[in-house]
């Protein structure tokens, strides 16, 4: 039987939906016992949310003042403290999980699988390589403890449970380093839907030409109730903040609807949107590679088309 420890991602108050996606991945492994660990300064609220995810059998609440900010160097020894007895240790393939889990794997001297897209059994998984140009089936020797990050775009969040799982407080015995200190985080907190979970995403590329011009995409996004994304070229040029970047080195997303305006369709960008249900591309170059994968394509000038779409949608036409 598999016993799977999942490291919860949260902001101190709310459980990140990526955690319930890790639970879905764990549930794909037959007969798995699924335990979620919440590391926080005061994890009561988050632990209660984790206990309410279907499939979770137990929640470990690990409170410590050092856990006020998620620092890999501080969290890794605590995860390693809990890990004995578990066959798998999972975290999400977000920047949180990507930072933390390899540090855990090294402390445990186990291999790690990054970006798991499918669990075929307790020892067989699928993951992308080469910017998604190859999907590899990987087998781990039975009996090897395995650390993995779960590609969130590949899994639906596990639903709410009928009854909450028990929560258990665990004390930290691991020695925690002081060589790494949190200073600050600056995020463009917005009222818009979150890029990683939004059903609709309006995304812009270099063609937007300025941060000011990007506003037409925010307007359309507001009309559609969509999140805003950007290509790396747009982020590099300073038209959009870095947390909006979609692609191999940005966010991998799977919205119902992805609208790409003035994005050429470089392979590194397409990696980030392959799982979108419907891709719409607007580009003035009919030869742009993005049209090769778009479900609906329109050749034209985005500065004319974006406001027009917004007008048609808001007038119900």
């Amino acid at each position: 039987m598999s016993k799977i420890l999942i490291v919860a991602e949260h902001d101190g108050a709310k459980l990140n939906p990526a955690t319930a996606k890790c639970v879905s991945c764990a549930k794909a492994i037959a007969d798995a016992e699924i335990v979620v660990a919440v590391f926080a300064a005061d994890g009561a609220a988050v632990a209660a949310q984790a206990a309410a995810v279907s499939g979770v059998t137990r929640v470990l609440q690990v409170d410590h003042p050092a856990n006020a900010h998620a620092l890999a160097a501080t969290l890794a020894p605590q995860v390693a403290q809990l890990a004995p007895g578990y066959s798998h240790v999972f975290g999400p393939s977000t920047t949180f999980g990507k930072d933390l889990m390899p540090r855990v794997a090294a402390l445990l001297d186990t291999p790690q699988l990054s970006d798991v897209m499918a669990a075929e059994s307790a020892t067989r998984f699928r993951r992308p390589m080469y910017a998604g140009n190859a999907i590899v089936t990987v087998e781990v020797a039975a009996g090897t403890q395995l650390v993995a990050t779960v590609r969130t775009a590949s899994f639906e969040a596990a639903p709410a449970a009928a009854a909450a799982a028990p929560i258990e407080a665990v004390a930290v015995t691991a020695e925690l380093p002081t060589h790494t200190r949190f200073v600050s985080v600056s995020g463009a907190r917005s009222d818009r839907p979150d890029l990683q979970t939004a059903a609709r995403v309006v995304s812009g590329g270099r063609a937007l030409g300025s941060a000011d011009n990007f506003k037409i995409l925010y307007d359309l996004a507001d009309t559609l109730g969509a999140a805003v994304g950007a290509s790396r070229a747009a982020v590099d040029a300073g038209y959009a903040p870095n947390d909006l970047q979609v692609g191999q080195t940005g966010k991998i997303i799977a919205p119902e609807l992805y609208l790409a305006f003035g994005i050429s369709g470089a392979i590194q960008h397409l990696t980030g949107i392959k799982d979108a249900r419907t891709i719409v591309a607007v580009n003035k170059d009919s030869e742009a590679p993005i049209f090769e994968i778009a479900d609906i394509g329109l050749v034209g000038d985005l500065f004319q088309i974006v406001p027009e779409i917004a007008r048609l949608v808001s007038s119900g036409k």
Partner: protein
Amino acid sequence: MKRILVSIKRVVDYNVRVRVKPDGSGVITDGVKMSINPFDEIALEEALRIKEKGLAEEVVVATIGPADCQQQLRTALAMGADRALHVLTDAAIEPPVAAKLLRKLVDKEQPILAILGKQAIDDDCSQTGQMLAALWGRPQATFASKVEINGDKASVTREVDAGLETLEVDLPAVITTDLRLNEPRYVKLPDIMKAKKKPLETLEAASLGVPLQSALQLLKFEAPAARSRGVMVKDAQELVDALKKKGLL
């Protein structure tokens, strides 16, 4: 001596459209252009800039891999690295093994910083830097977009899902680079000539006392499910109509 260790991996160039072999045993690499992993070029550039500011005295580049990797080490020397270390092996090296081998090089070189790429664009693992930091028992600042050295500390801005996070770490530390950290310099012809005279030391991987076999078996490579070309519409109205027909608006 204040030294920076930079690891560079030889990978299929990022412009190559990688294809899976028909028998599923791997990807086609015959006759394909190979380069320094783009994130590692950024790592080297950052190390060189730190040295140019007088905050370090020597930049050492290291790679783990077959004889062909010498090409990328020479390029790194031409970019400005002072010395190169080649851990020679024909074995497929996974991140835990790479991290253990790099840990040995850290013992040998005693750097104030080890700078790695945030991910190798072939395996896309994003593990080695974090693993090295754990094995070394030192801080890690991953996905860096800004690095400032202040005495025996570094302040590092990281690209995280929520935006930008700043950490302060004691040196020595491990940093992994994100794309916006810097723009690597171009190699000039005279530098290529000069690089030929710079020291390049070869170490047999097997001699470093790290077991090289991997714990994972790659059973099968497949091409991803292809998305096919859809329909073209002629204006915004047709686009909105098409979305409505699909039930998306």
